[in-house]
């Protein structure tokens, strides 16, 4: 994997009172030589991998359950990707879907890290043959 550059996406959970502006100021205040770009969902931080990891650790210290993160393949503002420059890969459908799910994940993380038990998922049962037969013959 590439070691020089890392572009990391920081996304704020909809349940958080943190704003993208506050997050960007926080990363800027760390004094790291990394590029920070404010976005509607949080921010993008780009720079040498170690610096970006430091930014992640510092953000997690203060906002452990409110800010989620992953790496991004394309550099920040890359013309092949950026919507502002009419890039050809303007896909945010997935990020939007995950953004909607973040409050549940935030709640679940708090629950799990408090050491509380969770309900075991129900095992999938086989569908009874008689019921299946009834279903097949329902409109005969």
């Amino acid at each position, binding site marked *: 994997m*590439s070691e020089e*550059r890392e572009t990391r996406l920081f996304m704020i959970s909809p349940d958080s009172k943190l704003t993208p502006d506050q997050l960007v100021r926080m990363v800027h205040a760390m004094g790291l030589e990394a590029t920070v770009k404010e976005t509607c969902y949080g921010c993008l931080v780009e720079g040498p991998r170690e610096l970006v990891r430091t930014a992640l650790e510092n953000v997690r210290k203060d906002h452990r359950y409110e800010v989620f993160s*992953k790496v991004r393949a394309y550099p920040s503002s890359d013309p092949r990707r950026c919507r502002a420059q009419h*890039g050809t*890969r303007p896909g945010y*459908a997935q990020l939007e879907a995950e953004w909607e799910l973040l409050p549940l994940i935030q709640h679940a993380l708090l629950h799990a890290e408090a050491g509380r038990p*969770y309900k075991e*998922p129900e095992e999938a049962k086989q569908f009874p043959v008689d019921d299946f037969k009834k279903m097949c013959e329902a409109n005969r």
Partner: protein
Amino acid sequence: MRVFIDPPNSMILYDLVERFGHEPLSSMAAIQEMIDNLEVDMPPMNVTIDDVVRGLAYAGVEVPSGIRGRLAVWGPLIDAADAAVIMTDAPFSFGCVGCERSNEMIKYLVRRKGIPQISVGYPETAEQAETVVGMIKEFLEGLA
């Protein structure tokens, strides 16, 4: 340990794997490799013919080229993985789960490799989310 996530571009799974102390293997890193080392053009030509040929290691020639193209990127990640976290029944827009045949192939390749894996359902309620995160946490903490 290196943990393969499915959907391979999921932020939530990437974040959880990293949070619980492992290295997530995602399509973002694989695509970054292509972007940094090769030229990916402005038109949406994400795969080259070489990628599709490389995909033959993971799927037969009769398999549609779209699936082989995907597996050319995801296959090496599965090869490099020590464990896998798989989210099933996700809605269409969650991750790159639009191609069910590719998803089936991923599950098959992970099973064939015989690495530890956990399969969790997509959470719809707070209770289900507690179960999903609790199971993933236990699984990741249990990896050596």
